[in-house]
């Protein structure tokens, strides 16, 4: 009897191992496909943010910044670099996942995923990984461009890396949810235009939130992007308008909440299964 039980336990273990291995292959496949897509259309995914950020550096950093003077002991150019890098990471992660996932819905090849044995978390993780990688790549490109305009010394490398990973994950998840509900291409353009861009500009990319008077400072604290920009600025320059532990608490809370929502929607097949 014990032998039979032991054999059954081994079977279950072997099956779990093979399912885990299959999930790992599936996760790698989606991520690889996403990266390949990003690189295939590099003129749409990598070049525009590089050009846009170069213009920001020239106009805001060099031309206007030279008249502003120093911010917390750093030149204005140095002060805005972390915010602009984070802005690129956020918008590109968001844009990557919305266009890719909505494109797969629109072209119906999302059915390849839905009709496969992959669990929902693998599908979500694959798309998020692809979007995070685009965010990281664009962030790296923008950072390299920034070095042509100013010098930077990364004050806290671990904070820098963890912030960029968390920030891109949060906006990838948000983008995924947007794409799930989207029924037409307009629906994936509305949030970046009317929500993401204003929040980014009001998130302390170009100024210190402490410079705002009440009630605008308090209003600004309701903007999640403020915490990401400040955490990243702390990582790069060592300065922040908000305590770093609060920025992590806010980012983790958003990441967990958005992941839970995205997984629930995906599991139910909202916008995907009838």
């Amino acid at each position: 009897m014990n032998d039979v039980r032991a054999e059954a336990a081994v079977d279950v273990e072997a099956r779990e191992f093979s399912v885990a291995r299959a999930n790992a292959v599936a996760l790698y496949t989606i991520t690889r496909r996403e990266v390949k897509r990003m690189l295939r259309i590099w003129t749409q995914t990598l070049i525009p943010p590089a050009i846009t950020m170069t213009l920001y550096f020239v106009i805001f950093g060099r031309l206007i910044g030279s008249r502003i003077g120093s911010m917390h002991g750093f030149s204005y150019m140095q002060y805005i670099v972390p915010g602009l890098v984070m802005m690129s990471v956020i918008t590109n992660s968001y844009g990557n996942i919305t266009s890719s996932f909505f494109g797969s819905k629109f072209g119906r090849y999302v059915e390849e995923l839905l009709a496969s044995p992959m669990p929902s978390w693998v599908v979500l993780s694959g798309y998020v990984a692809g979007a995070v990688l685009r965010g990281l790549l664009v962030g790296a490109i923008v950072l390299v461009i920034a070095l042509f305009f100013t010098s930077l010394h990364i004050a806290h490398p671990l904070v820098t890396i963890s912030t960029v990973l968390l920030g891109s994950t949060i906006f990838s998840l948000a983008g995924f949810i947007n794409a799930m509900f989207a029924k037409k291409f307009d629906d994936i353009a509305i949030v970046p235009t009317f929500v993401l861009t204003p929040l980014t500009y009001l998130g302390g990319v170009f100024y210190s939130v402490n410079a705002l008077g009440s009630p605008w400072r308090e209003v600004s604290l309701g903007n999640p992007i403020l915490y990401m920009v400040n955490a990243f600025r702390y990582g790069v320059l060592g300065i922040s308008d908000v305590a770093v532990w609060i920025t992590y608490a806010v980012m983790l809370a958003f990441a967990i909440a958005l992941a839970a929502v995205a997984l629930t929607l995906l599991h139910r097949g909202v916008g995907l299964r009838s």
Partner: protein
Amino acid sequence: MPAVPALETVDLRKTYANGVEALKGVSLRVEPGDFFALLGPNGAGKSTLIGILSSLVNPTSGDARAFGISIHRDRGAVMRQIGLVPQEINFNQFETPFDICVNVAGFYGIPRDVARPRAEKYLNELRIWDKAFQQTRMMSGGMKRRLMIARAMMNEPRLLILDEPTAGVDIEIRRSMWQFITGINRAGTTVILTTHYLEEAEQLCRNIAIIDHGNIVENTAMRTLLAKLDVETFILDVPAGFAGEALPEVPGVKLTRIDAQTLEAEMSKSHDLNSLFAALSGRGITVTSLRNKTNRLEELFVRLVEHGKPDQGRAAA
């Protein structure tokens, strides 16, 4: 002890959000190794049923089991058994056939070193290997259909579901597709087919279910069903110039004019032809030739494309 069915649905129901009741308690059983036809008019519920089996539609109630595994209990295990060829083209038009096949294999957990030779094998067998590294948007409709079959084979399914796979495909390609499908069926894969080309279903399938308004109205062996068919249709060739003549009324025969030189007569198999000829002669209409209504053009075309000349085809056969 009876074999575990390849597919079993138990009282499967689906009511869409708009209130349309697409399936009203479908119970169906498909034996392993079968070539099974699922037929029905547009909107009968075929695609909903296939959608549930392939996890694209959530059932309202009831269960579907593939090889004894319930879709509710272990969706992943069920999906590993199934390959789906959907009705609509549903792959990324900017990817290549090779990438599409290898990626889909990856979604099933098949590593790339296994998937690559498998993709080559199936793209070759379906005669689209020469397009393997071109973007699929450059491919013809027939090639896209064959790619969907190759893609469905990447997990080497035990149950292959084909939803109108030959819609809009020319006869030569259609025949090569059926050659491939019958080959894999002979090798042990269970095949479920929906099609509007009834002659396809008649030739290929051993068992059949007919669905209408969300209910299974017939589920039997193809032979049994065909035996029930009591109506026969004949095409009659008549000389030009009869167009002005009124057609005679013949009891038990539905006689219609197709064009100036052709009539169609539909009648029971037990009905004799003599009364029809007598009635036509009575109106001065001479019948120059007679044939059963089968798709002779299809046969002629296949002989032309496969063997060069119509006569050679018959001789070679």
